[in-house]
């Protein structure tokens, strides 16, 4: 069997993603005395803010299918999604002991209330709720959001983080922009030559970035991208799909692979959306406070998602656009069970797809789902129908 040129960076990423003891964060802390590890829940926090203060932001995506939830279940009723259970399990089992602070962004009511639970469970940690604006006027929501970021910065500083300076923030934004360019490259490879990098591979490569300092993620992507370009071309006859709805609780890796094995190439998705919640370069105008620029980027360049008020834009318009730009044949809705934002959004997105004559199907999951047979059949039938439609 010939050697896969992308094996090394992918293996590195996989190890990081599968390590729910967060040993890399511990190692980072040991190597950065005085640095804080800041855990945050999905979807998004502005990572450059933390990096600029000498902190390591780490996205906590719950325990996936790796953690046996024992105590976590006693905190939540049966009709609540899975990610808060496994997150509490990680917390009470000590896996997050090395973290210094936690930020809960305003994703939904579950994460909002979890912020309060966390304060009670772990009173010795710094815990903040971060209110992202739903008003997208720079002078209103933008101003409020910048103040929110300053509040978080103050909390970290009180815990011993480096003071926030404009120079450090501008430099961290610069790095974030570099990462963005690489993520765009990876996306375009998936779009143009999906056989070079499967969605399940891109998934771990991107998710690793939610755990690493930005420079290390840049290094990993810089190794991966040329490597996948060296992979040999192969015959290609899969249906091209966009997957949407997994922006918070993440599907188990087996589920992503099942979709692929059922003949669907995922050419675009909203997994790990935190790294893509702001699209394009974050521009800092000459003389501008970089914090204001960071806030403005969220206001003006934010990705449309169920947790962001759609404002005047057409609901589902962004999804239809993604389908077109990624030349997808159809859409798979992949929402976590009991995820109100995703599931309430779905009928509106479906309507927009129907209007644009884009076929779609829908699958629900929990992060710890272990049985994929019915998904295999459903996705296989959907993929087949897309190919037939496409050929018609």
């Amino acid at each position, binding site marked *: 069997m010939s050697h896969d040129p992308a094996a090394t960076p992918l293996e590195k990423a996989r190890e990081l993603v599968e390590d729910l003891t967060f040993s890399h964060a511990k190692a980072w802390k040991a190597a950065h005395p005085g640095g804080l590890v800041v855990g945050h829940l999905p979807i998004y926090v502005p990572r450059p803010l933390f990096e600029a203060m000498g902190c390591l932001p780490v996205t906590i995506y719950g325990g996936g299918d790796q953690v046996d939830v024992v105590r976590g279940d*006693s*905190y*939540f*009723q049966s*009709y*609540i999604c899975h990610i*808060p259970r496994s997150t509490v399990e990680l917390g009470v089992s000590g896996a997050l002991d090395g973290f210094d602070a936690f930020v*809960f962004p*305003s994703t*939904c*009511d*579950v994460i*909002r*209330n*979890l*912020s*309060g*639970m966390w*304060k*009670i*469970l772990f009173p010795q940690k710094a815990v*903040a*709720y971060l*209110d992202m*604006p*739903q*008003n997208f*006027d720079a*002078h*209103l*929501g933008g*101003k*409020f959001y910048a*103040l*929110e970021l300053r*509040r978080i910065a103050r909390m970290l500083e009180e815990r011993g983080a480096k003071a926030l300076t404009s120079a450090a923030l501008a430099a961290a934004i610069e790095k974030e922009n570099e990462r963005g360019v690489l993520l765009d490259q990876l996306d375009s490879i998936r779009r143009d030559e999906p056989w070079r990098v499967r969605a399940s591979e891109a998934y771990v490569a991107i998710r690793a970035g939610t755990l690493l300092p930005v420079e290390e993620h840049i290094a990993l992507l810089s190794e991966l991208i040329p490597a996948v370009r060296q992979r040999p071309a192969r015959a290609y006859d899969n249906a091209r799909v966009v997957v949407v709805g997994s922006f918070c609780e993440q599907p188990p890796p087996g589920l992503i692979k099942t979709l692929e094995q059922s003949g669907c190439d995922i050419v675009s998705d909203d997994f790990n959306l935190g790294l893509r919640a702001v699209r394009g370069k974050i521009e800092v105008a000459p003389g501008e406070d970089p914090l204001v620029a960071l806030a403005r980027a969220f206001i003006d360049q934010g990705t449309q998602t*169920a*947790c962001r*008020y*759609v*404002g005047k834009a057409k*609901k589902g318009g962004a999804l239809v656009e993604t389908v077109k730009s990624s030349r997808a044949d159809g859409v798979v809705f992949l*929402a976590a*069970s*009991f*995820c*109100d*934002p995703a*599931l*309430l*959004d*779905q*009928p*509106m997105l*479906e*309507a927009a797809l129907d209007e644009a004559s884009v076929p779609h199907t829908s699958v*629900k999951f929990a992060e710890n789902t272990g049985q994929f047979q019915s998904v295999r059949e459903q996705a296989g039938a959907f993929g087949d129908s897309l190919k037939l439609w496409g050929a018609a």
Partner: protein
Amino acid sequence: MSTVPVAKEVSQIRQKTMIADHFKRLSRAKEDGKKVIYTFVPGNLSELLGALDLLPVLPEINALQSGMRGKSAAYIAEAERQGHSEDVCSYVKCDVGMSLSGNIGPTGEKLPPPDALLLSHTGCFTFMKWFELLREQYKCPVIMLHVPYQGDGEITAEMRRYMVEQLRDVVIPALEEIAGKQLDLNELSRRLALSAQAEDDLVRVWEAGKRRPAPIDGYFGGVYYVGPIFSAFRGTEEAVAYYRELREEVEARAARGEGPLTPIGPITNERYRLVVEGPPCWTSFNDFWSMFAKEGAVVVASTYTKVGGLYDTGFRHDPAQPYEALADYCLGCYTNHSLTRRIELLSKYVRDYSADGFLVNSVKSCNSFSVGQLQMMREVEARTGAPGGFIESDLVDSRYFGKANIANRLQSFFQMIDARKARRSA
């Protein structure tokens, strides 16, 4: 709120007439040239709408009324047929189903479509989805008012300023455009002063629950008491008259040493004094209430009756600062409070109202209420020593009301209280 078969007091008859008149006004809105705004109970801006002569429709109230009138199952089924998930909030599905089925309101009259949706984004993320859905359906504008959450348990100057600026620069201009007239700030202040009067009397009603026996039920009865102030009537003379009358009735009942009226008659043997957290189950409202009343259980205080305004901790609409009053009102609704504050409030209720126990009714629909309730229960128990009980149901989806299961759990809960009382008197 007209369906409970209890003996009617004068205030109830007045409320019934007020609500019937409002729905009549709504049914004639188009011919009368009135503009209609749909908005939510928490963070409703009734005084502002009233000052601009705009008529409010509150979809949550329609949903709960549909639940009480046995219509919600069909509406939810209709929404699920249209692709809505079984997992999500049943209020939304009930409302969507109702509008797809002709939008007939609780009084049997057709509700007018909205001229705009005022999305006061207070204490619940589902509100945003709900109005996005209605926007698609009615093709009308949405006016977003983003209300920050009190994550650290307080209203900061930054939050208040953000709210005031949104009101001044976004909400009021948009409403003025729809109303076709400018806001008269004096009229707004006049209405805010009326609100504060009614709020004073409502607080006196709540505080009557501290008496023994309690002359009110602050949950099952309480949801009727909040009807006018949570909906279209805050800031009106009608609401002032209603709350004055209600207060006098309650004070008279207290003076006579009478317990609250319930679907099975007045409570004459108050055995259990309870504090309840969480909304009621509307589809089996009378059944549910009767399970308590039969045991002599009275809810002396509840949090659900604070979702549309938390007045008993001191907030009043201040006519001297109209924008700030509206801002603080929205920021202060119960579900916009941090879990820590909710626990503190519940513990205070248990102590101040001399409650024997604390019960959570956790509804499947509502993540805003429900996430954290198990932890809240343990904390309140630890802080007050009062036993905590936990039952589950739903707001308007009767598939989640398991009568036998709830009855069993209630029995165990009452036994826990009895055992504690026995221990204490031993």
